[in-house]
């Protein structure tokens, strides 16, 4: 990548990276692709089971609570807040990457710290939601909610909900841990010495992927 790039460059002729990205970034993309298939498999199996069922619980009946709101009927409100938090943390992550391009250590620190705050806030929201559902009697193998047509629902609904949001939550958790590790390195000046902040970009890719998966989880579980 040191040589000048022209449009007629023979990318596959040898001597260059045909993708014009570093090894680490390319491997992060490939990892995310495999992870996309894992999440895809989970969501599609959920879809298959849902297509197989004659009736299914109404998400607006199940997810209608929000903290400090008592028994008010608020479908979609809390999960919209969670979605907003995650989109917002994605934005602060891009801003951190942007600051890294400009080699602005202070700005990278600031935006990474906000990203960590966003991730932690999202996890706190999810913890509240899980606790709330648990107290309503929902868990793996237990489903207190009725189908739309009034018949008792199978445990497929809760099993898929807790497995998929749990697997996503696990990704958010590891993302927050990675962000913290990167932030420590930024503060130590590791990337300043290295001469570039590419590590922020790689972890950033992972973080955006977590946001991307949530977009699909949000649609599949709360909207459809």
């Amino acid at each position, binding site marked *: *990548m040191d040589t000048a*790039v*022209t*449009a007629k*460059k023979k*990318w596959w002729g040898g001597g260059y990276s*045909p*993708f*014009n*990205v570093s090894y680490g970034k*390319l491997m992060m*993309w490939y990892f995310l*692709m495999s992870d*996309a*298939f894992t999440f*895809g*498999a989970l969501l*599609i*199996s959920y*879809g*298959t*089971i*849902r*297509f*197989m*069922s*004659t009736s299914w619980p109404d998400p*607006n009946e199940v997810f209608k609570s929000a903290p400090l709101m008592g028994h008010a009927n608020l*479908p*979609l409100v809390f999960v*919209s807040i969670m*979605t*907003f938090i995650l*989109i*917002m943390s*994605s*934005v602060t*992550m*891009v*801003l951190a*990457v*942007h600051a*890294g*391009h*400009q080699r602005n250590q202070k700005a990278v620190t600031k935006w990474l710290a906000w990203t960590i705050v966003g991730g932690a806030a999202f996890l706190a929201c999810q913890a509240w939601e899980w606790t709330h559902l648990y107290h309503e009697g929902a868990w793996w193998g237990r489903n207190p909610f009725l189908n739309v047509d009034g018949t008792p629902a199978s445990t497929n609904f809760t099993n898929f909900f807790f497995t998929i949001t749990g697997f996503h939550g696990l990704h958010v958790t590891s993302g927050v841990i990675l962000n913290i590790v990167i932030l420590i390195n930024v503060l130590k000046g590791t990337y300043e010495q290295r001469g570039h902040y590419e590590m922020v970009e790689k972890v950033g*890719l992972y973080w*955006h*992927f977590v*946001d*991307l998966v949530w*977009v*699909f989880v*949000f*649609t599949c579980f709360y*909207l*459809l």
Partner: protein
Amino acid sequence: MEHTQTAAVDDARHGHGDTSTKTIWKTFWILLCVTIVEVALAFLHLETGFPSRLVLNAIFIGLTIVKAFFIVAEFMHLRHEIKNLILTILIPLMLFVWFIIAFLADGDSWKNMRKDLSPGTPKQATTVTNEASHH
């Protein structure tokens, strides 16, 4: 993708241009607005039942893909990478087209079998419902 390879590479190296904060915030507003539209449509359906469930679901899936496009293209910067990289990521993901169609069709077929072949002959069941509707 309207950029030439040269421009995309230069921007990536110098770290300005495409990744300007203006684009970032624009993408944020698009994502936020799409989410608000989704939630608003869901409430509209709850209150009035207006967009029928089928239409509503089609809109939701369409808007989800719009959001996914903006996250991958802008936040993950894929739009500004060179074509080789874009293709190596996107072509394998096309498997999802088969994946989704095959498995959802399978689920649907299971539902129909469970309905049609459930114990108690199906023909009786249909005549019973027909009689009930006549009276």
